[in-house]
Every structure is written in structure tokens, then in C-alpha cells.
């Protein structure tokens, strides 16, 4: 097991370099002059362009630029935006908010999605199953921005139950509605995944054995059935936390939440390449870490999966 963990950690290194280089190249090497349009209808003064070119090493070739960036990144410096704010500071003020939002979303997905999935998976066809099928189909077909804007307009503007935008440092309560918008899509997937996997395992031999042994129903379902059925769901939830942190771009934009998603949203709008690269590098790290944790949890849940 230790060897497996070590091997996985070593694998992270090339993945990290590969992904971050791709991101860096994609963001900075986009064709076109990064300073066009920066100064309104007139061209930017050459002096300004020179200063910024030097600051962001734009005269070097892409590889040199990338390694200079990584160098300062490992020194704890995430770089600066064009308007002189430190990207590191921006990230450190915004990640707790996104983490909070992502947790709210994951909790909503997990609680509602798992409950719906377990209930329909156990009962099989019937009214409840159809209800869940229809509502999840509905949710899956709605893009996040539609859900978010509809919730905002109906609950915020028309009914006045919530505010149209959340405050600067939102509490968990304020994040429930944005969390629903963000988590709704995955919630539907979780419900479906759980349902299928439970329905499949319900007739497995080991469940029959457990029932034959006279185990109480709660133990059969809670320990034997759920533990096995939850593996695919867990994979999904784990990597989803990573994608939620990035996927919050739209939701955070709509509700004006100052998290990582909002940071990318504005970074893209204003062509703040340094911010975009910084945040995406962070998201890559989160992704890598989450998938590592998920892989390790497999072994804990199912003793048959051991990686030696």
C-alpha cells in the first residue's frame, strides 16, 4: 500500500508539469497582442507596453517564460495582475469562499442524490422511481446558468426570499441557493448512479447470503449493499469536488460570489492571464489530490481492491 501511494505521488509530477505547461501556453500564447484594447480606442503608449512586456517576460520564448513562472511559483509568488494586485493574495482571499460553496454543493448532491438513489434503487419501479427519473432528466437537461439565473430571478427578485447577489464574505446560509444551482446537475447524476448500482447489487450473491444468515435488514443494506454500491458514486463525488471548484465560474458570476470561479470569470473577461493561470494551476492541484484520495478510498471500501 505504501509503495502504491509513493508511486501515485510520483505520477503526479509529470501530470502537474504537463497540465500547467498546457495551461500556460494556452493562456499566454493566444495569438494577438495582449495590449490591444487595453488602452481604449487608442493604441497603448509604447512605454507602457515595454514595461509590461518586461514584467511578464513576454519577450522570452514560451519555455523560458514558463520556467520563470514556475520558478517564482515555487518561491511562493503567484505573480501580479496588470493592475498590480498580487495573484496569491487574490487566491487566498477567494478560495475559502469557493471551498464553502463547493462543500454546500457536494453536501446537497450527496444527501439528496444518495437518498433518492437508495430509495429508488431499493424499491424498483413505481411512482417514486418515475418521479426521480423525470426530475433528474429535467435537471440534467438544464445548463447551470439557466438554473442559476432562474433561481436568482424567481427567489431573489420576484419573491424577495434571498438577495440577488451574496455578500462579500458569505455564510453557509447565503450559499444554499447558489449551492443548489451549482450542485443540481451532479445531484441528478449521483441519484442515477446510486440507483443503478444499488439495483444491480440488490440481487448479488453476497446479499442473498447475508439475508440467509439472518442479518437484520438495516445491516444488509447499510453495510453490505451500500458499501459496495457506493464505489462508483464516490469516484464521481471525489472528482466532482474538483470540477465544482472550477465549474463555479458561471454560478459565482451570476450570484457575484468572490470565489475562485469569479476570479477566473473576471480574469477571462479582462484578459488577466496571470490570474487565470494561477487559479487554474491551483485547480489542477486540487483535481490531482482529489483523485488520489478517491483511489485510496477504494481500497478502504473494498478489501478486494488492493494495489500491491
Amino acid at each position: 500500500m505504501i509503495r502504491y501511494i509513493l508511486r501515485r505521488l510520483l505520477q503526479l509530477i509529470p501530470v502537474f508539469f504537463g497540465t500547467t505547461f498546457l495551461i500556460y501556453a494556452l493562456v499566454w500564447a493566444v495569438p494577438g497582442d495582449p495590449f490591444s484594447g487595453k488602452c481604449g480606442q487608442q493604441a497603448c503608449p509604447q512605454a507602457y507596453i515595454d514595461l509590461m512586456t518586461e514584467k511578464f517576460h513576454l519577450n522570452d520564448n514560451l519555455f523560458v517564460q514558463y520556467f520563470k513562472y514556475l520558478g517564482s511559483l515555487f518561491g511562493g509568488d503567484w505573480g501580479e495582475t496588470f493592475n498590480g494586485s498580487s495573484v496569491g493574495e487574490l487566491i487566498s482571499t477567494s478560495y475559502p469562499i469557493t471551498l464553502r460553496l463547493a462543500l454546500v454543493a457536494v453536501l446537497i448532491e450527496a444527501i439528496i442524490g444518495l437518498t433518492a438513489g437508495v430509495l429508488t434503487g431499493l424499491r424498483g419501479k413505481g411512482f417514486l422511481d418515475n418521479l426521480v427519473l423525470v426530475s433528474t432528466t429535467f435537471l440534467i437537461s438544464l445548463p447551470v446558468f439557466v438554473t442559476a439565473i432562474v433561481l436568482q430571478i424567481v427567489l431573489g427578485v420576484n419573491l424577495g426570499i434571498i438577495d440577488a447577489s451574496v455578500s462579500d464574505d458569505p455564510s453557509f446560509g447565503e450559499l444554499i441557493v447558489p449551492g443548489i444551482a451549482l450542485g443540481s446537475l451532479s445531484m441528478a447524476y449521483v441519484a442515477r448512479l446510486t440507483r443503478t448500482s444499488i439495483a444491480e447489487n440488490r440481487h448479488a450473491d453476497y446479499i442473498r447470503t447475508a439475508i440467509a444468515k439472518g442479518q437484520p435488514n438495516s445491516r444488509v443494506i447499510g453495510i453490505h449493499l451500500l458499501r459496495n454500491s457506493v464505489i462508483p458514486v464516490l469516484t464521481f463525488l471525489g472528482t466532482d469536488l474538483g470540477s465544482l471548484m472550477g465549474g463555479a465560474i458561471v454560478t459565482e458570476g451570476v450570484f457575484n460570489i468572490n470565489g475562485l470561479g469569479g476570479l477566473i470569470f473576471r480574469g477571462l473577461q479582462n484578459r488577466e492571464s496571470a490570474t487565470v493561470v494561477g487559479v487554474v494551476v491551483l485547480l489542477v492541484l486540487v483535481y490531482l489530490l482529489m483523485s488520489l484520495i478517491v483511489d485510496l478510498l477504494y481500497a478502504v471500501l473494498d478489501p478486494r481492491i488492493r494495489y500491491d
Partner: protein
Amino acid sequence: MRGSSRLWSAAAVVTTLSLLLTACGGGGSSSGSSGEADPNGTFTVYGTEPQNTLIPTNTNELGGSKAVDPMFSGLVAYKGENGEPYNLMAESITTTDSKVFDIKIKHGWKFHDGTEVKAKNFVDAWNYGANSANGQINSTFFENIQGYSDVHPADKAAKPTTDKMSGLVVKGDYEFQVTLEAPFSVFTTKIGYTAFAPLPDSFFKDPAAFAKHPIGNGPMKFVSRTPNVEIKLTRFDDYQGPDKVKFKDLDDKIYASQETAYQDLLSNKLDFIETLPPSALTADKYKTDLKDNLVTGHLLGISTIAVPYYVQGYNNLDLRRAISMAIDRAQITKTVMHDTYVPADGYVSQGIPGYRPGVCGEYCKFDPAKAKELFAKSGFKGKLTIASNADGGRKEPLVAACNSIKNTLGVECDFVPATDFGQWRSIVTGHKLTGMGRSDWAADYPSIEDFLNPLYRTGASSNDSTYSNPQVDALLKQADSTADKDAAVKLYQQAEDLIAKDLPSIPVWDEKGVAAKSKHTKTVVLDFRRRADYSSVEVLKK
């Protein structure tokens, strides 16, 4: 039954009407909300993240200037309602030849750190702004001043030979002299632009630290800034100027999306937004949403469609006239732009001294028959295109213009989108247009000069059509050097007449400026730069 219900509804109509009439007769200002103004209230405005550091010489876009402008007061300021310039920090600005200006400043004005504003604060700030080593975004605003080429060499590789412009001389604590390279009569209006603000001594010790906590001399002082969240300012109680503010705190709240800001405004969480999102304009929704809280102004800007001379087949006066006459401006501004624009009929925005209606004459009027005739005469073959960035609602009116041209002239017309403003400007400045292109202009300072020199002089920075007419150049130069303001305006108008004859770009529309306020705001004026004129703002007790 039927009869009685009809009677009832008639009665209801009468009652409602009489109620409405009494409501109207009851008086009250058209600005809507009434109640007691709160001198210690907070005014929350829609903001966007500043693109550059918060220093006047490095701020040129709306997001940054919303915060920087109230913090700094220049020599000259513009009135909120009509953009008319008046002396603010300047006691007097005198010149005999429009080349050498003697500037006396008022005594007793203070920076927010308590130090007095002196003549050298202006001179130092201008020298800093012009110096190419400092890479300030507004450096070209100082280019008229003598000695600019020493601190800002035109050659890319050259280093400045000095850090002082020879044209700036401090004559005493409250007096300095500016000498220009060539006479420029509009200089006294131009120096009201943000970049010409004074900077305190503390700035020059550590500009980077200053940018994080700016110290100005304006009606409001800096409190705090959280990137992407908000910029907070508060009233500077020692302020001497006439443009004092009548509320206490200014909260510049930064939004990622205009739509959200608009929703916040409707639920009174935000007090002012200077532009309405496309969704609010659709089907004139904003008119019912806002009612009394709609704020209109007149922005000093103009939209034209540039017809580049370098594109094959387009250098043809009959063609330009035919296109211009084929665009139904009145209908497009009404149906596509929802009354937020008015048709343009010249090269100068309405409301500027020197604006005359109908400069463009019959060629800016919709006349399908004449347009067809001219088009036939032009002998143009092929397809017409109009290019522009497609974001921010730019696309729809141009598509409509294209359709109008297509229907009138029976020629193919396509809208060619660019991904964003940056890409769009690089196409234009690189002279890579393959057809017509959007060419919108917003004035930096309210002068007819600012609508002509940067756009139609040979080789000017925003001359998108690459238009060149020696007569126009000569008239503009003559106007620049005419000290008498009225005489100068007349010369600029002559230049405009010549431009209108050549039609290098086709005037299409002129933006009215439609803003919105919350019901907590008693009065607010939208100024020509699309900002709330803070000195006009009164907020109500909450």
C-alpha cells in the same frame, strides 16, 4: 349584471385617471424619490475591477476612473449636466498666444494627508506621467508640452535623456508656467482630464505603495480596496471645491456581471448603475422596471462606420454616400437600440459647444431612391462587410444596418465579428480591415477638438479609415493655434464640413446614456463620461 359591471369598470377607469391626474398635479420633482436627504448616507455604485493601478496618469477606463476621479481634483473640472469646463483648482489660466499658459492655483487646498497642494505637485505629477520609464498608460496626454520628446522619446529603444519637461516651470508655490510645442487652444479644456491631477510628495517616494493607498486632493478620500470586491471612499471634510459631495461614503461595488448588478439595483441593494444590461433593454423592459428611477443623460460620444481607404474598391465617394443613405438610422435606434441612442447627423456629439445639427446633410438621411442611384453610379461590385467586436451589444445594430443596406441597395452585406474588443482594435490599428468597420469614439474631454484631431487628422491615433485631407489638416492646425475660443470653434467646424463632404466614415448614432438609480437615491446626474456626477448625488435616509 353585464350593464352594472361595465359601469363599474367605467367608474374604476375614471377614479384611476383622476388619481393619476392628482398625482401628476401634486408636483414633486421628476427625479422621482422624495424624502429627506441624508448627509451621512452611503451611495453604492456599480463598479468593475480597475484595469491598472489607481494613479491618475495610469487610469483611462471606466472601472478605474470611477474610483480615481472623485479622489483627485484637477485645475479644471466639467459640470455634470452639460460638461462645461470651469476652473476648479486653478485660480486663473492666462495665455496670449495659446502656447504659453500662466497657471495660478488656489491657496489652502489640501491633500488627504494634510499637506498643501502647491504648483510643484502638478509639475512633478505631469513629468512623472509623461516619462516613458514609468510606463504610464496616459503618457500621450502630455505630448503637446514642450520637452515631451526628451522624457518620452519616440524611438522605442531610446532612453529618456532627462526626467523633466522643459515646458514646465514652477514660478512659485502657487504659480507655474506651461509652454507647449505648438499653440493649442483647447489645452485649458484638456487639462480637466484625469491624467492632469496633482500628486502629493509621498507619491514620488514610493509609487507602488501609493497605488495601494492613493492620497488625492479631491472631494473623497480613499478608505480601503479589496480586489474584485469593492473600493471604499469617504467624504474629505477639508475639501475646498464647489463640487463637494452631499453624502458620506461611496461604495464602489465590483460585479462580475451587469445582469446581477441590475437585479441588485431593482431590489435596492445597489444605488446606481450607469448602463443597462441587454436583457433589460429587450422589449423596453427597463422602462417598466425603472419608471421614476430611470436616469438619462447625454454621453459625449459618437458611433460611425469607418470606410477604410486602403480596402480595394471602397475608396469611392458615391459608394460611401450610397451606403450612408441606405441606413435607416431612425428605425434602428428605435427598434434595435430601444431608444438608448439617437440618429447621428454629423461628426460631433450633440451637446458639445460647436455642435450643429445636420452637418452631414442629406447624405445622413435615409433616402432609398437616391441611395440606389448613387450606388449604381459608383459601379461597386462584390459584397459589403461591416466588422466589429460582437460582444457588449455591438453586433445587433450593425447587423440591422447591414440589413438596411442590403434591402435598399440589393447588394450582399455581412456582419463580420471579432472575438473581443482587444482583437478588434488590433485589426483596426494594424490596418487589416477587409471592409467597413465600427468606429466608436467617446470624448476624453468635452471639446469639438477631441472629436476631430484624434480621428481625422492624417496619421492620427484613431484614424481608422486612414483618411487624409491636407485641407482638413491645415484647418485643424489653424484652429489648434487660435487663442480665441469662438474663432477656434469656427475653424474646427469648417474642418468638420470638409470631412462631411469626404465622408471617410459614416455617422450612424449618438448615445443618449441611460442609467438607473435605486429608490434610496434622491437625485443623481449622469455626466458625459457615463459616470454619476457625485456632487449632484443626494441619498435618502434609509
